[in-house]
């Protein structure tokens, strides 16, 4: 069971760092026990089948595959959590993801994939593996997993469903002024 928490009051950054095994994920995400936690935005994602470090790497990888600087990590986390659910039901999927991430880390040098500071460096590693089933599983899943979240649509300026508002006949279907 993967849970997305909107808030985790009571866990301070210090608490997290005191726990064994806690490690920084980039600047924003922290691993704690079986969870990936975003300090800054107060959400956490608990994993059941995949290692939380693996999930943290997937979140970073998701952002590197489809980078939108204005989209918070939370939506990337939601977009990849299905891999934890699939891994819980299917050992082959778990293997695909864990081995894929291990390979990514191995190709990235001593600090692993998340240790590479620049997106450009991480993308260079991703280019090496873009034909693999692992990469395609992650990328393919993101197309719907990321872009079909109604919460991200306003970030792109897409208004979604319009029937209940009477369409756009009185709401700007022809409001362009700059032509």
């Amino acid at each position: 069971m993967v849970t997305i928490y909107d808030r985790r009051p009571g866990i301070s950054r210090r608490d997290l760092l005191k726990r064994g095994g806690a490690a920084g994920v980039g600047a924003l995400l922290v691993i704690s026990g079986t969870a990936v936690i975003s300090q800054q935005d107060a959400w956490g994602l608990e994993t059941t089948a995949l290692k939380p470090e693996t999930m943290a790497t997937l979140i970073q990888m998701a952002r590197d595959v489809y980078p939108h600087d204005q989209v918070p990590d939370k939506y990337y986390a939601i977009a990849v959590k299905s891999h934890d659910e699939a891994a819980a039901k299917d050992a082959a999927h778990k293997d695909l993801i864990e081995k894929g991430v291990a390979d990514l880390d191995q190709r990235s040098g001593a600090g692993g994939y998340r240790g590479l500071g620049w997106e450009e460096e991480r993308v260079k590693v991703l280019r090496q593996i873009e034909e693999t089933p692992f990469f395609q599983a992650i990328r393919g899943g993101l197309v719907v997993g990321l872009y079909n979240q109604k919460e991200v649509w306003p970030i792109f300026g897409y208004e979604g469903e319009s029937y209940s508002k009477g369409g756009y006949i009185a709401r700007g279907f022809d409001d362009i002024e700059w032509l």
Partner: protein
Amino acid sequence: MAAPYDLNDDSVVVIIGSGAGGGTLGSELAQKGIDTVILEAGPRVEYDAFVNDEWDSFGQLAWKDMRTTGGTWRVAKDFPNLPAWIVKAVGGSTTHWAGASLRFQEHEFKTLTHYGKIEGASLLDWPISLADLEPYYAKAEDRMGVTRTNGIEGLPGNNNFKIMKAGADKLGYKDCHTGNMAINSAERDGRNFCQQTGFCFQGCKWGAKWSTLYSEIPKGEATGKLEVRPNAQAVKIEHDASGKVTGVTYADKDGKLSTQKARIVAVAGNSIESPRLLLNSASSMFPNGLANSSGQVGKNYMRHTTGSVYAIFDKPVHFYRGTTMAGIIRDEAKHDTSRGFAGGYELETLALGVPFMAAFLDPGAWGRSFTTALDHYDHMAGMWIVGEDMPRDVNAVTLDPAAKDAFGMPVAHVSFTDHANDEAMRNHAYRQGAALYDAVGATRTFPTPPYPSTHNLGTNRMSDKPSEGVVNKFGQAHDIKNLFVSDGSQFTTGGAENPTLTIVSLAIRQADYIAQEMSAKNI
């Protein structure tokens, strides 16, 4: 009231499919007093149940049963089991179509004559001319309420159209307007008018766009002579020892097989399922499939030369608001080989929501080149290219040698490879589309590859000679006189125009012919 017919009633006309062809034919026949049963593979989803959500609607309406693909078209790589985006529901693809209703041009019925022999293409003249179809085009336009015909006003232009029009003017295009659309610009025929909601491709929740679901079929049902049987997927057409067809075996939603007897069978399952059904109906008498003595069933699969051009501007557009196909440029639809290809193409506005834009802008692409396009989604404009593609016998719908459906029948294998003429046309259209947007100040343009096919044509083509096609000029099988084809698969060639108006016109004409032949006791 809808009339339920007995399975053993062998006096009925059985139509397979309820879309532009089947839905129109069924309603026409019923209104002529002919007992008719339409078998529809999908459910009946009334228009108030449609959803303004691209993927949810896809789940609700699309034909998702597995198909396989071959050939070098990019769809085979990006969407190997989804060669076409068509509908499995009552109303067929008239539930999700854009509404563009254009007549073929005169020369497009006679392409072999006008284009000459083209290597690698199996061009053939239609056995009918524009003059033969004109009276039926007129009936269809009236029936469907096509704008700019019958005194019906054009739709108002949305933001996406205004950009197209400004660019068209700068490029010197003369024939640019808000289209001939089967979408009401004012209330007509008991239907609402367009509320500029967007989501035309998800089914019109206002019923403003013509669809057999709520326009034609209820009129047929009101006569008491038409039964539409949803969740009834045809698996085989039966015949007797004389070679006449006698009924259709279909599976209901629980997979139970039944056979509806028939006096006449009309196949209208769209250009992938129609040939598949004829091929799957092979018997010892017809070992290559029904109506296939020519070997032409499934051949000459056409899908229009398509593609899109999207553009980003430095100011907002909100192109998803309003009619999806809100405008057209027809200047390139002519046949003019000085452009380096035979035939022509239309440019029509198009918009996708964020979910489909992500899936279709450049399938498989990733990284900032891709994502910065979506970052400016609300600053985008877009158009779709729809042009005539070359019929080729190597482009075909065949039976997959391995994959089978839930009823044990081989699935359709759809193979397509562009002809050089198709590629030259698409590249020309990409350049024109980009130039148009550049002329209005685009900062970036995207030549976007074709989507899974929405215009599937030609796999049971009409021909004068029985050796060159599957059906005659009335859509009647050359081999079996009580078997008809009533959808876009009877197109001899594809034309540059969106096909629905021509499918509806052919169905109205076919209904007249069937009624006449029935009363003459010829069938």
